[in-house]
């Protein structure tokens, strides 16, 4: 009995201590708030207007579904300016990996806003997100969106849940000759090129012979290193391939991208790069998007697939490296092409958990406006950039490619919430930059086919299951082509890949895609 009494007392004592601690911390918080109130009270006397706007600020939580997103919080002068204009402040949560969003959707724990380029159709569900049309009608009837943009974002249920960025019509591209597509580039070590006597680089064969000379002269060097998410992309452009998913038009029908007649050539070229020792097998095991950059910055690599000389060179200078990278500013093949199909890249969704849909749609209205786009992408007009009226492009007053400056200002990235393809493309134009030369070359290769880009599978449908299974299979089986010991084996592996895709139901998928393609073609 005494023992029981003792333990009860002890438990009570522990509870009391805990409660005292809690209330102490509460007091602390209250104290803090009181001090804040007092200090803003002082400011109140000086600037009463500011205080009143501060009170109206709505805080919304935004989940950015891109683990590589460089801006981790809503700080810097541009987000501050956006908050000033819209009264909305965002609390940013950047995805840890690509599995987080599906989990958030499944558990129903979505924050107020989601910005994503994947799982779009999952987000576009009336149980998950608000249809934008509904919110516009209710809160901002003056919010006008062009019919093309609504068209490409409309879901089978007749609603549109977002307006994706990066979309522009062919006419918009024609009207803006300084708009440069974000084409995947390639950079080379300038000093080594000079040592090799600046050999000609006009086609893909030239590239191979340069890599061969590098390998012979610098056997310890990796001739070509790729960004883990962009393996082969620059070459896909040069081979005129649709990036790495979706469908291509073959004789008027929508066929899976792997059936493009140039795909085999691309695979054989990549296989040759591997067989002749110009790229590492280990490149395919990179888990970190910075691993390739390290090779380049440490001087271990000669060519950098997906490299951007304007971004790498300042980093090399900072590290005190005695060399620079130069951009390949030409298309290396007559086949080159960049498909501009589709409906854009990423979109902002106002979820059903949003605590203030009115503020959210007003925020989106601003971000979609010309003013909002340019503020988000370029910065404050007059201070950070000025419009060159004669040539129609923004002239930046800061080092636009410097990631540190971008992060500090909060520039570029938040503009993508609502920017159009050409507004994004215009910011890339800088007459002095190497990437601009490459961008101008790549512009020549743009191929428009919006109807084809719209063909994409819906979640929880048989077609999506087939496509997902094929994609899953391709990620591993494709490597067998890249790593084949001979050209014959690579060819055989390509055939085997197509056969496996067929066994997973490719014919059915293509039949569905062709029907959709024909349907969409009527709109264009």
């Amino acid at each position: 009995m005494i023992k029981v009494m003792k333990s009860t007392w002890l438990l009570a004592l522990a509870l009391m201590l805990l409660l005292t601690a809690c209330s102490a911390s509460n007091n602390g918080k209250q104290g803090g708030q009181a001090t804040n109130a007092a200090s803003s009270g002082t400011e109140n006397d000086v600037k009463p207007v500011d205080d009143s706007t501060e009170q109206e600020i709505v805080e919304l939580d935004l989940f950015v579904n891109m683990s590589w997103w460089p801006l981790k919080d809503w700080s810097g002068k541009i987000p501050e300016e956006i908050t000033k204009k819209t009264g909305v402040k965002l609390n940013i949560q950047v995805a840890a990996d690509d599995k987080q969003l599906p989990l958030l959707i499944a558990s129903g724990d979505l924050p107020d806003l989601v910005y994503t380029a994947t799982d779009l159709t999952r987000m576009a569900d009336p149980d998950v997100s608000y249809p934008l049309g509904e919110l516009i009608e209710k809160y901002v009837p003056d919010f006008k969106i062009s019919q093309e943009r609504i068209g490409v974002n409309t879901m089978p249920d007749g609603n549109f849940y977002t307006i994706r960025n990066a979309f522009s019509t062919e006419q918009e591209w024609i009207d803006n000759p300084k708009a440069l597509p974000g084409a995947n580039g390639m950079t080379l070590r300038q000093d080594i090129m000079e040592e090799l006597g600046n050999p000609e680089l006009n086609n893909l064969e030239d590239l191979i012979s340069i890599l061969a000379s590098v390998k012979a002269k610098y056997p310890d060097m990796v001739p070509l290193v790729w960004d883990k998410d962009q393996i082969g992309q620059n070459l896909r452009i040069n081979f005129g391939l649709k990036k790495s998913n979706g469908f291509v038009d073959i004789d008027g029908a929508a066929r899976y991208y792997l059936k493009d007649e140039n795909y085999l050539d691309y695979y054989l070229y990549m296989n040759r790069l591997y067989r002749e020792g110009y790229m590492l097998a280990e490149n395919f095991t990179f888990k970190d998007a910075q691993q390739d950059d390290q090779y380049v910055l440490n001087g271990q690599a000669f060519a950098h697939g997906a490299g951007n000389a304007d971004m790498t060179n300042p980093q090399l200078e900072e590290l005190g490296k005695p060399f620079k990278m130069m951009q390949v500013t030409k298309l290396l093949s007559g086949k080159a092409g960049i498909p501009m199909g589709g409906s854009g890249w990423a979109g902002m969704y106002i979820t059903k958990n949003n605590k203030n849909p009115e503020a959210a749609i007003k925020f989106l209205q601003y971000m979609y406006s010309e003013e909002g786009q340019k503020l988000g992408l370029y910065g404050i007009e007059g201070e950070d950039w000025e419009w060159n009226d004669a040539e129609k492009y923004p002239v930046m007053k800061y080092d636009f490619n410097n990631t540190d400056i971008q992060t500090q200002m909060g520039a570029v990235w938040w503009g993508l919430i609502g920017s159009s393809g050409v507004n994004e493309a215009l910011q890339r134009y800088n007459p002095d930059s190497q990437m601009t030369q490459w961008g101008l070359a790549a512009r020549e290769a743009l191929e428009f086919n919006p109807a084809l880009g719209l063909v994409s599978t819906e979640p929880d449908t048989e077609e999506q299951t087939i496509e997902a299974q094929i994609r899953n299979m391709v990620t591993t089986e494709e490597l067998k082509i890249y790593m084949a010991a001979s050209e014959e084996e690579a060819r055989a592996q390509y055939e085997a890949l197509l056969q496996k895709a067929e066994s997973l139901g490719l014919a059915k998928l293509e039949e569905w895609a062709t029907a959709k393609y024909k349907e969409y073609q009527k709109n264009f």
Partner: protein
Amino acid sequence: MEQLTEINALEETKRLPAVKRSIWREIVKQKYAHMFILTGMLIVFVFHYLPMFGILMAFEDYSISSGIKGIFTSEWVGLKYFKEFVSAYNFNLIVTNTLAISLLKLLFTFPMPILLAIMFNEVRHQLFKRFAQTVSYFPHFISWVVVSGLLVIFLSTNSGIVNDLLKGLGLTEKSLPFLSSPNYFWGLAVTTAMWKEAGWWAIIFLAAISGLNPSLYDAAEMDGAGRLRRIWHITLPGIRGTIVVVLILAVGSLLGGGLVGSNFEQSYLLGNAMNSERSEILQTYAFKMGLAQGRYAYATAIDLLQSIIAIILVFGSNYLSKKITKNSLF
């Protein structure tokens, strides 16, 4: 008042048979201990039994957008997902990898802690014994994420310390593609798991050894038994019970990697497109299908299949052990 309670108690005792009465009395007497057990049972119920209704998904055309309610309202499709998995082009590969990695781990990592515990037990220098033991179980506390990060750096073909060492010693001419060649994955999985967990599991066997009567050793020594004979005739039979229980547990969790676990972590973190031929296992496949592609029903079916195999393994090994060694878990 006292009289009244006495009468009530008397009536109650009349109503209950003698055995039940004594059980009830025992329970009341041990009510605090029972409260602890009840809390534990509640946790098991809430977190292990309650979520089991999710298994229904494996037999339904379930979509995550229908939420938890959808688990009960989705259309019934029977064994559709099981059939789909079994006929998947990589089914054989995934099952072979899962079984091979698991069996290899059982084969190599199960005897290791026993061996280590016996070795520790034979060390006479106390300070060294304690030091070696601490060093051996320390890796257990490093997470697989960190371990795999270290492995990626150490095993890199280009600048990894392991390849530099092998080349420096003249053991190989070219760097060995530890991470990019499928041929190395199984070996890598087994050795790293052994390194990480052998010391930890040795603690259990050491505890069992320390429970043995020292006079047995003295007697054996008097009879002229050497060190190996003492290990063979006293230590090993003395800890046989522990070995059997741990073995049954290891076989039960065989598909997860047995004693050392970590099949999923290793395949997920060290696996890549290059070695997926040997590194893709049931768990990573279910993870990819379920979470990345959002096909929860299909992933549930794959996991359910694995759970069924695990249950068969537990009951099977328990039955065999009962027959052969007379020791069993239940």
